[in-house]
């Protein structure tokens, strides 16, 4: 055989140590997997846990359109009608169609009352079958302050929703509805109007049964703002029990109160 060919064959047939290297790499993979398996699950996450789970619920933002009174249903409510002096007639006017009635500002006698006299006494009537001499039940539309907008919760917030826009950085808590309730309850006890700007962070713990414990001021501001925020939480005192989907025994919540003039 040609000498050159012989040399080339020899050289290309040199011992290949790839098998050993693959074995080494397999061992390295096994070690890596074991390391991942044995490490605590929250390794690396524990460092920034505080910030990562901060949920900012803005109850302000740029003021959205004030919606004011919202009719939630056309259910009749009882309103005290002004006492009116009326002619002493036997029968009141026929039952008028239910109409939307603004609260009366001035006592106005109803001129129609005297116009017709229809003695329909046998017919059972709900309203105005009696002389209108005293406080009277009238039909109206229920008007309830609902606070306007819904509270979008869970990261899809937009600014400027008036009261109740929510911004969440991160929500790893199972039940945002619970937080909405929590915020609403606390907000009810919160005197926002302190005339001073300031930010207070309150930390508290909700027990399984909904009791609020361990109220602490985490980030201080002016003392009376601290007190106002603390009072808001303390007066709330009892929340609904923690949702069943949440498995923990207790839930620690940090609430940031931002007082704005």
């Amino acid at each position, binding site marked *: 055989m040609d000498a050159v060919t012989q040399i080339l064959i020899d050289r290309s047939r040199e011992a290949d140590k790839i098998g050993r290297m693959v074995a080494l790499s397999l061992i390295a993979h096994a070690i890596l997997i074991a390391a991942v398996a044995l490490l605590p699950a929250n390794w690396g996450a524990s460092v920034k846990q505080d910030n990562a789970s*901060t949920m900012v619920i803005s109850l302000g933002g740029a003021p959205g359109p004030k919606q004011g009174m919202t009719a939630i249903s056309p259910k009749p409510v009882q309103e005290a009608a002004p006492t009116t002096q009326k002619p002493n007639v036997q029968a009141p006017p026929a039952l008028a169609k239910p109409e939307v009635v603004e609260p009366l500002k001035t006592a106005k006698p109803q001129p129609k009352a005297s116009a017709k006299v229809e003695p329909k006494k046998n017919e059972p009537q709900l309203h105005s079958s009696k002389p209108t001499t005293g406080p009277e039940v009238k039909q109206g539309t229920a008007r309830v302050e609902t606070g306007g907008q819904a509270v979008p919760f869970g990261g899809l917030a937009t600014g400027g929703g008036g009261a109740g826009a929510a911004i969440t950085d991160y929500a790893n808590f199972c039940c945002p509805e619970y937080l909405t309730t929590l915020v609403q309850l606390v907000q009810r006890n*919160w005197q926002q109007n302190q005339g001073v700007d300031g930010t207070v962070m309150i930390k508290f713990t909700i027990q399984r049964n909904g009791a609020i414990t361990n109220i602490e001021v985490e980030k201080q501001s002016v003392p009376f703002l601290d007190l106002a925020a603390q009072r808001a939480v303390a007066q709330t005192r009892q929340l609904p029990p923690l949702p069943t989907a949440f498995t923990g025994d207790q839930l620690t919540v940090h609430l940031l109160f931002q007082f704005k003039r």
Partner: protein
Amino acid sequence: MRTFGYFALALQAQGGPESGTGGVDFVELIARSNWLTKGVLLILLLFSAVSWGIILYKTWQYRRASRNTTMFLQVFRKSTKFSEVQAVCSSVSASPLVGIFQSGYAELNAQLRQHQQTPDGPNRPQAAPARPTLKSLDAVDRALLRATTVEVGKLEKRVPFLATTASITPFIGLFGTVWGIMAAFQNIGAQGSTSLNVVAPGIAEALVATAAGLFAAVPAVYFYNHFTNMVKEFAAEMDDFSLEFLNISERNFT
């Protein structure tokens, strides 16, 4: 003026010991997943292991080759006779230049021996040879070229597996993920609820496969490019050496 207030909530689950927030428990995820996901993960593990084996082997091979090349070139440029260089060759055999040198030298030897034998016969005393001449320099060139091809082939061997790993492992991982998500959706259908508690674990399991695919692919891509580049450098070095060898042969034997 209206007062606007802001709330910020930060939550901390202080529940049982296993309520680790933020961290991912891979073992639990993998243990819960179905057999197909496990199979995909196993394939990916094998791909990753083999490609890392190749990476280690090639790194070792190239490092050894370049060290031996430096030593070989030192010897080659210092010595005056090819036979001296030939003696060193076995100690630096990892260098691709050794193969080129050896085949070139073998071709030279063959031609010179032929030349010595043919005209005057074997009786002529070896001590006083006339200046030997080569029959064909082209043949030497071809021998060098053959050696170069073989050496490049040796250096390139198994590197394409890295390219294969780099291109198919993401797809294998993706396949596992798609299958897992299909299973998750079937789960939704079976349970009749779309709550996050039903969907999320399945999708998390499924995504492990994609993560594993990328885990295998990224080093493979990097080292494939790195190794291809190194082979190119070696090839340039070999070409350079071939030309040098040819020059010396031409100068001395023609």
